[in-house]
């Protein structure tokens, strides 16, 4: 299973094979909502960046099924150690869109007080660990979290994301070693979206073997799954979660997908890959595929979809308007005294003096 590709949704939008989960239509519609909301929000915020309303933005276009399904499979007390392309995790848990907007605008109501780059969220109450721009460096935190939870007799599991490019970091191998040695209840997810900025997955070793197969050397199970297949991602994650819950240890999941957009607002993908490559991606679009499945099941139709999309877009427009009223980047920011808070639990004399020096 580390070398094949686990799929459920076929080309005709049917759920087939041994991994097909049985899910209520409302659950599926909630998943579709999280994915659509993510896509619409990110497209809209990307435009906000082009309008100069924020400094930086990144989209997860084409990868929405992964974190939407996993957020729904994992429990409210589980912790996600995220990358910057898993916004659907928060959307699936109904994180307030206005808080995302305020964080991206770094305005007065930014929940992270203007201290962090746009989209590097932290949302403990939503099972979302503090995100950072360093790649891979939280992978091992998930192991520590899972070990701590197990030590305390708690049932909070950890799920960690890393990109296929960052599997080359030492953090990846260290985390797998520790998880293996201590049988930590953690799920390691490698989102293989084929591209690390401009480097194709072969630069990370993707032409020599699969990323899921890296698990084998650590004595861990590795599963390779179609990351654009909401149902397959759901089923595989459920399997890994049950394994962790039963105290059988960690699982590595390679989520085979495609980065539909550029790396960030700072690059033009046409400079390093064919402009039409995204259209040629054979595994399709995750939103279209789940939508098609719901339609096949008689639980959705085009009219409802168009109406639904319009409703979500309206909600997003309203949230962005509300955020813009507070202020976009540079127009509004938290009190500058916030720059000096949270460096230590209690500020030492340096921080206090410098705060006074700035007149904050």
């Amino acid at each position, binding site marked *: 299973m580390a070398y094949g590709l686990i799929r459920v949704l076929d080309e005709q939008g049917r759920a087939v094979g041994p991994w097909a989960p049985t899910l209520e239509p409302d659950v599926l519609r909630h998943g579709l909502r999280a994915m659509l909301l993510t896509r619409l929000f990110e497209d809209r915020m990307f435009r906000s960046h082009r309008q100069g309303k924020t400094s930086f933005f990144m989209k997860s276009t084409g990868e929405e099924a992964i974190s939407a399904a996993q957020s729904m499979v994992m429990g409210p007390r589980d912790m996600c150690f995220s990358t910057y392309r898993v916004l659907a995790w928060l959307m699936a848990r109904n994180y307030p869109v206005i808080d995302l907007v305020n964080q991206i605008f770094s305005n007065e109501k930014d*929940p*992270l*007080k203007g*201290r*962090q780059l746009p989209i*590097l969220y*932290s*949302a*403990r109450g939503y099972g979302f*660990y*503090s995100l*950072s721009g*360093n790649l891979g*460096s*939280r*992978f*091992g*935190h*998930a*192991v*520590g*979290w*899972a*070990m*701590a*939870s197990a*030590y*305390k007799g708690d049932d*909070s599991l*950890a799920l960690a994301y890393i990109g296929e490019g960052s599997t080359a970091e*030492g*953090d990846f191998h*260290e*985390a797998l*070693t*520790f998880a293996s*040695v201590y049988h930590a209840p953690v799920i390691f997810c490698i989102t293989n979206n084929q591209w690390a900025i401009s480097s194709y997955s072969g630069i990370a070793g993707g032409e020599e073997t699969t990323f899921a197969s890296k698990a084998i050397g650590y004595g861990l199970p590795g599963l390779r799954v179609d990351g654009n297949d909401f149902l397959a991602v759901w089923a595989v994650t459920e399997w890994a979660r049950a394994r962790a819950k039963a105290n059988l240890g960690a699982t590595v999941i390679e989520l085979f997908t495609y980065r539909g957009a550029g790396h960030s607002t700072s690059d033009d993908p046409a400079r390093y890959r064919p402009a039409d490559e995204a259209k040629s991606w054979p595994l399709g679009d995750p939103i279209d595929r789940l939508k098609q499945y719901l339609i096949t099941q008689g639980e959705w139709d085009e009219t409802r979809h168009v109406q639904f999309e319009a409703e979500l877009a309206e909600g997003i427009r309203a949230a962005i308007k509300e955020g813009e009223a507070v202020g976009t980047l540079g127009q509004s920011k938290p009190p500058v005294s916030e720059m000096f808070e*949270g*460096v*230590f*639990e209690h500020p*030492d*004399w*340096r*921080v206090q003096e410098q705060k006074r020096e700035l007149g904050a």
Partner: protein
Amino acid sequence: MPSMSMIQALNSALDVMLGENPDVLVFGEDVGYFGGVFRVTDGLQKKHGLKRCFDTPISEGGIIATAIGMGAYGLRPVAEIQFADYILPAFDQLVSEAARLRYRSNGEFWAPITVRAPYGGGIYGGQTHSQSPEALFAHVTGLCTVIPSNPYDAKGLLIASIESNDPVIFLEPKRIYHGPFDGHHESQVKPWAGHPLAEVPAGHYVVPLGKAQLVREGNDVTILAYGTMVHVAAAAIEESGIDGELIDLRSIVPLDLDAITASVRKTGRCVIVHEASRFAGFGAELSALVQERCFWHLKSPIARVTGWDTPYPHAFEWDYFPGPARVIKALVQIMEA
């Protein structure tokens, strides 16, 4: 009160904390069954069990990443890095993660971890078992850096570090693990037994971080030191007959600035002593602070006595090490200036 070496005092601190607080875990390379290469964790696994004190893979980055995750969950992990020289694979974890977590998450997560590491020279350990990297950590805001100089402080500072909600780098000068080394390497090694600061209470007590210790009162010159150099400086004062005021900083972050400035304003002279190499060493920061805050009280330029700006050498250990002769020379020069 029991008499303890620094090893025993550190062991006692860990023993007390493991006994009192189920959230404290102790781990690192060779830390569990074997009890650590310097024996600091000796007997702890046997007494407190495998879940509380355990061996880790040889992976400093993995050790610290695991500790941070545990800390974020709510435990108080105490990780050992076998030698401070080996801490660099974990540097990214300490700088980019432990030091920043509270700040970047607006207090949603933090890393109450203690990272212990034997440090410093004087044991013929060569380049990879002798270095003093404290300035690297002092420069990173969000980290505390603690360096004890005696058994009593070692235990109280380690307990304070474990109880701190900020990440603490706890550097243990290995040359004074067994006795107060004054830099006279040709002399017979003295044990801690009989030293007043080897009288260590058996139970829980705290030496707060950020409070320097006035080791010797004097009127002519302030000597700022920490770790092994406290003993070297004390010997230099005694042998030179110069009325030096010796301050043991105990922790360089947080730094007891008031103790430093009060002393230099009184004496008008300042000599800074550390084992680490000089250029951009912690002495540079101390020198800048004293200059900025005590300039009009100074009777002579501030002096630094430090390791040379070379890698830590093996055969030249005692040429590199800032021993009493070099400290005395600096004291004499500053008095003549």
